[in-house]
């Protein structure tokens, strides 16, 4: 790690003030930040430790939303009775992620901003447009088995590695953020930025802005939802492909459906066209597979990750058929 200034404000207001300093970044669980600082991938001059701030550690139910404080630990959210009963995809995406220790540390607000595992991003000796804009992308032409097939660009093919954000993408989610400029609400679909011309910009938060809440709009889709994750080993591994599926069924027919894809895309991915194609259809492995094929129709593959297309399609089938058993 390079030297940094450290400050531990006592209130959100103080935190926002401290974050106004140039280059200051918030830290809570630290599971991504400290890891990447040790690799010199991140070199923040100042850390503002918001981990102990009061008032951001609760999960609350309002009339129309489930509201997660940004400092709720992943492990606590995974165990929350409301999630387990009414939004199993959200609970499963949490407990299938990382390890128990990391889930005890990592916060929900930090987790949605998890950085890519692209090895060329994580090692400063390689070329990486995300780390050093304009330097090139060593993943293209390199080892890219774990990289994205959806939402990539000529400049970056890194995949978004997280799980919970994939489940959030399947629902109507918003995040509340605050900075010295005030509070604002960002639609979840707008939070993560595809690489396009500026892969170094991974999220829509401004300098000094910090997430305070994640709100998921209440929906009957939650009950019959699941998060299905395929990985190289049984646990403590990143997704090769994952799918958050949520259903409202009318008998055998799909009334409403949501599909979030993980491990395969540059950002938490919502497969809207695949959803549209399924609505009004009978849900069978065949129609589910067609939905999967639609979801990956625009996939672009590289030397080692072409398998993510057939795997992703089959993961959509598994997730949908599994969600159906809860409908």
């Amino acid at each position, binding site marked *: 790690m390079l030297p940094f200034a450290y400050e531990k404000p006592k209130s959100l207001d103080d935190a926002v003030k401290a974050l106004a300093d140039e280059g200051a970044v918030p830290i809570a669980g630290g599971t991504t930040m400290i890891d990447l600082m040790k690799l010199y991938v991140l070199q923040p001059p100042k850390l503002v430790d918001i981990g102990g701030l009061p008032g951001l550690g609760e999960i609350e139910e309002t009339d129309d939303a489930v509201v997660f404080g940004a400092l709720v630990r992943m492990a606590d959210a995974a165990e929350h009775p409301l999630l387990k009963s009414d939004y199993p995809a959200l609970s499963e995406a949490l407990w299938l992620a990382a390890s128990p220790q990391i889930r005890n540390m990592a916060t929900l607000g930090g987790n949605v901003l998890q950085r890519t595992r692209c090895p060329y991003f994580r090692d400063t000796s390689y070329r990486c447009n995300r780390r050093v804009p304009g330097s090139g992308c060593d993943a293209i032409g390199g080892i890219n088995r774990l990289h994205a097939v959806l939402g990539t660009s000529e400049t970056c093919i890194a995949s978004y590695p997280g799980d919970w954000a994939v489940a959030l993408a399947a629902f109507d989610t918003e995040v509340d953020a605050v900075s010295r400029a005030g509070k604002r609400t960002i639609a979840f679909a707008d939070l993560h930025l595809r690489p396009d011309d500026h892969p170094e910009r991974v999220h829509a938060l401004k300098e000094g802005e910090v997430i305070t809440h994640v709100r998921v709009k209440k929906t009957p889709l939650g009950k019959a939802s699941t998060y299905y994750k395929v990985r190289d080993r*049984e646990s403590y*591994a990143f997704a090769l492909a994952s799918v958050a599926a949520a259903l409202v069924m009318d008998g055998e027919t799909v009334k409403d459906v949501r599909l979030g894809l993980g491990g395969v895309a540059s950002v938490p991915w919502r497969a809207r066209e695949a959803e549209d194609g399924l609505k009004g259809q009978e849900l069978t492995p065949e129609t589910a597979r067609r939905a999967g094929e639609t979801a990956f129709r625009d996939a672009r593959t590289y030397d080692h990750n072409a398998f993510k297309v057939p795997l992703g399609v089959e993961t959509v*089938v598994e997730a949908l058929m599994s969600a159906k058993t809860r409908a």
Partner: protein
Amino acid sequence: MAELPLIGEGAPRIDGRLKVTGDARYAADFSVPNPAYAQLVTSTIARGRIVSLDASEAGKVPGVLKVYTHENAPKIEGVPFFGKGGQAYQGFRPLQGVEIKHEGQIIALVVAETLEAAREAAFRVKATYEPQTPAATFGDGGTETEVAAEISKQHTDPKTGDADAALKDAAHVVEAEYETATNHHNAMELYSTTAHWTGDHLTIYEPSQWVYGLRAGVAGELGIPQDKVRVLSPFTGGAFGSKGTVTARSALTAAAARALNRPVKLLVTRAQGYTTASYRAETKHRIRLGADGDGTFVGFVHEGFELTSRPDTFLVSGTESTVRMYGFKNVRTKVSAVRADRNTPGFMRSPAEVPYMFALESAVDELAWKIGMDPIELRLKNDTKTDPITGKPFTTRQVRACFERAKELFGWDRRVAKVGAMRADGELVGYGAALACYPTQLAPAAVRLTLEGKGRARVQIAAHDIGTGTYTVLAQAAAGLLGVALDRVEVELGDTNLPAGPISGGSVATASSVSAIMKAAEAIRLRLATAATTSNDGPLAGKDKESVVLKDGRLVAEDGTGEDLTDAFKRLGVGTVEEYAEWLPDGVDEKAMRGLYNGSVKIVGGPMQDRTQFSFGAELVEVRVNPRTLSIRVPRMVGVFASGRIMNRMTAGSQVLGGMVWGVGSALHEQTEIDRRYARYVNDNIAEYLVPVNADIVHQEIEFLEEDDGEVNLAGVKGLGELGNVGTNAAVANAVYHATGFRARKIPIRIEDVLKSHLV
């Protein structure tokens, strides 16, 4: 000489309490006064030259004491490569010039007041290179292929009869190529070196499975006498072959500590461990295996290709094992070395057998399907009592008994002999089997054994407990031989102030150390027995001294008469008897003992002059495959092993259980990814280099068969560290074939390989 009595066969480890309380002291846990902290800087190119190394920014980091580069590094003599009789993991010495031979080569050593400053400064060292295009692996331009028998004195290609002719006439032939991936040991304990000088005397704390080798290597590199160096490694946090040879960091750290006149503690990162120490290189195999109409093997051809570095020829030469597995009548083998711009590979748990037996045991399975025979039946049909190459008998070989018991435990008779025919809980089920083996090897060992009249004993030997249970089994051996309770025995290991023990490698540690203890214990017994039987009075006076043994704290004759140890010692007029013994395996001359003290290894075993000695086992696994995503799990493994005398069922069981876990890793998870453009390891961490986690290992059942093998050594002990790790990978691959029809000729088996086969 007395037999080895059995004591504490199921006893928990005597070092258990230290391990569960955090009191077991591993190398980096030792405290030294006012240490400076060191970090390595390693190259980011694999081949070329350093044009400039700018340490100015690093030097400005507050607390930095010194940055060593090739321009100011201490002169290191360089000891020979292990494969050439030395101790070094590779022959090439970094920091002695501008040349870069592999990725991750040490290019600087930073020493600072604090760990944080050392880390920051290491990052701030900037190198400029003149790179050349490297060759990364098989098939790359610039690799050089050489025939092992022509370049290595140690290597011969075992051969018998005319395999090619026999295969021409065979009724069934399997001809296939197999590949195994690059693997890294990834012991949980990171590499480290702490060097502490007091005057001209150096103490090194470093995780080691060969402290005398490390002592010789460091002394040689620094140009100081060996007796000025003490190496301590009482506990080693996993080694698996990675901590047996001397890497460049040890002498560099010691030289820095000498120059800076204070202790230096070097902590190596996980990523740097991938390139500054050894690993298991990738291999390729061409197999031809033929049988006649009823399944009798008629010919076997095994050609192996092993990757090695430019400067060093490291070969595992696994054909030495595969040719001895069945009654092959005609055998031809050939091993080739392929040189690339990589760090030198080295020993990794069952170095030869893991890759080579994967190839053989996969081919046997393929042949069984081809013939339409049960794969276990085919193996048993071709069992042999004699070594097909030398014609000499196996000392013991319970291949049939292992498979029969394993079948029973596993429920092999439920197997449906058809691909994809078995299902459970909506998943495809496959059964797979493979043979496990490991040559029984031995090495010279010296020990000091002490018995006190009060009934306490002490074993002192520079052997190592790398998790293998050495502390416990050596205490058991001493307790049994000296007739004292297990908790009255103290064992000291991992210290060059102790008599020289064997390298903890090649599964030699227990058998060799116990053999030395037997020799020392016999001398102690004889001293006490002689005094008691030649005395004028006492209950043993006039008895035959050979019939008198140490038992239950007493010196007793066959008829049960005897006296307490305290009386026996009184007669000698001493409170303590101490014996130093040197033990040499059959066919090893006495020079080997001097060699042992000077850091030279002599290991004998497998095929011997008059016999061939191996451990064997049968491994049966079940796999479950998701029919849609084709992801593979291993819910069940059964292993039955015959490996001579089992000293301790608990620690022995843990070794083979752990070996089988390694087999699952080898079959399904472990692969060091190489970016061929740069010849660089890409997943040099343990989040992306996957090893099995708890959830991957569901049910394991193991059993040891009784085996009395007095020929291998007096203790009847074979080795266990590596046996359990052999064959598992083939058993998994064979089970995957049974479940899916996908024949994995390359490991690890990845989901994309299976998917591809199903898409075609």
